[in-house]
């Protein structure tokens, strides 16, 4: 019965950089429906690579990827996958390329074949839901860092993905914007994976914590145990608060 619940399954994934450095070694990973995973790991441990492999931006050297039980191998398969899995990039400037916010948020909808009118309405509705009303005509490059991050999240959410992959969504944000992103994420009822170093934010947004070490992902327990867990990390030395 467990099998039907698995959304993403990676088996024996291997990946090395062109210079020969091996990043992912015999990596196994499962994401079940309604599971919200926080992924931690050192810089350069391959977390972003892992996310990119799942949507086919990078090809694994070997191993199998199954999404909703179906094996995905080539670009054609991944195109279908990308309609279901939304990836939010670390740097919002990479994500927002259109002149105005409305155009950027509509971009994915238009690619899905929606009409301009539909795309506009869906986007405006989302702005309302995310408390981004009035943003539609703002010019993307003139947004503040935090606003860019919120809009970048909106550009992916608007496509109603079944799974969300977020690469460092909390880094470099002020308290208020971080709180807003946490609020948005905790109200979503889809599965997601968050790559982050911010243990407090992960504790509030995820159900399970995994860590990446030596090219593999290990399950570290559920997020409520994050407290006892993360003092093993250097981050525990820094003073911080817990909301739980």
């Amino acid at each position, binding site marked *: 019965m467990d099998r039907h619940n698995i959304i993403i399954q990676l088996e024996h994934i291997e990946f090395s950089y062109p210079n020969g450095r091996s990043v992912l070694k015999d990596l196994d990973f499962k994401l079940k429906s309604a599971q919200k995973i926080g992924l931690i790991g050192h810089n350069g441990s391959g977390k972003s690579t892992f996310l*990119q492999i799942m*949507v086919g*931006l990078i090809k694994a050297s070997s191993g199998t990827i199954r999404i909703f039980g179906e094996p995905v191998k080539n670009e054609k398969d991944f*195109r279908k996958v*990308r*309609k279901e899995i*939304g*990836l939010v*990039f670390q*740097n919002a*400037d*990479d*994500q927002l*390329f*259109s*002149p*105005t916010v*409305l*155009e950027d948020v*509509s*971009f*994915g909808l*238009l*690619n*899905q074949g929606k009409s*301009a009118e539909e*795309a*506009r309405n869906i986007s405006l509705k989302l702005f309302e839901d995310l408390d981004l009303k009035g943003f539609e005509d703002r010019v*993307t*490059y003139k947004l503040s860092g935090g606003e860019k991050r919120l809009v970048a999240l909106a*550009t*992916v959410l608007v*496509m109603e993905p079944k799974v969300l992959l977020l690469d460092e969504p909390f880094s470099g944000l002020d308290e208020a914007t971080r709180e807003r992103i946490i609020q948005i994420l905790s109200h979503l009822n889809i599965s997601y994976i968050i790559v982050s170093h911010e243990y407090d934010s992960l504790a509030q947004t995820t159900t399970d914590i995994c860590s990446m070490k030596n090219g593999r992902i290990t399950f570290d327990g559920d997020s409520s145990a994050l407290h006892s867990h993360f003092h093993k990390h250097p981050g525990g030395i820094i003073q911080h608060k817990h909301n739980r």
Partner: protein
Amino acid sequence: MISEFFINDTFFIQRLDPRLRIVFATAYSFAVALFAHLQTLITALLISCMMLVMAGVNFRVLAKRLLAFNSLVLLLWLVLPITFSGEALYYIGPFTITREGVLFSAQITLKSNAIMLAFIALIATTPVSVIGHALEKLFIPQKIVHILLLTYRYVFVIEQEYQRLIRAIKTRGFIPKTNIHTYKTYAYLMGMIFIRSVDRAQRVYQAMICRGFEGKFHSMDLFALKRQDYICLPFMTTTIIGLEVLEWIVTI
């Protein structure tokens, strides 16, 4: 920084359909560029000024732009009158100022200013994104339009990256001098900006692919000619024809 200073759509011209403005500005520029008589050119300059008033352009910013532009024209005035052969007007030392040279310089000045002002009134008052989509609707190849739009979007990001690098080298005590170290530093700086731009282009493309991009852009803007556009169209046509007629009358 590139800024869109002139946008303020409470003014009549700025509410016209951007496609109409682009077509008219282009036709007008070609017409003006081909006129030879000062009478016609002065009329054209006056028409351009009228358009500026209708567009509600900020005159202080405009003056700055015109100053920058006309300093280039000034260079022509320094060179053309003494290098053109023709009827002599004055002698300054070894140089002869010719009538033809002066006339030619005046022509260029009037033409370029008339075209420049018309473009500021009609085109600079439109956001670049709208120009892009209007060009697309005017059957300009999609690729060219997207180069325009993406350049416009990322020129700022690249500028920021440049500023960051400049700050980084300044804080480490870099002072440009005429030596190899300086040239090398600037070369590294340029190289780094190129590399980062390529990397960024790749990431932007990946982000687009993730949102289902398959090589085709879909436009959001729905342009529709309104009543004011239909009213303006005959005026615009008449202006160009009128100028052509004037040029023809002056010729005979």
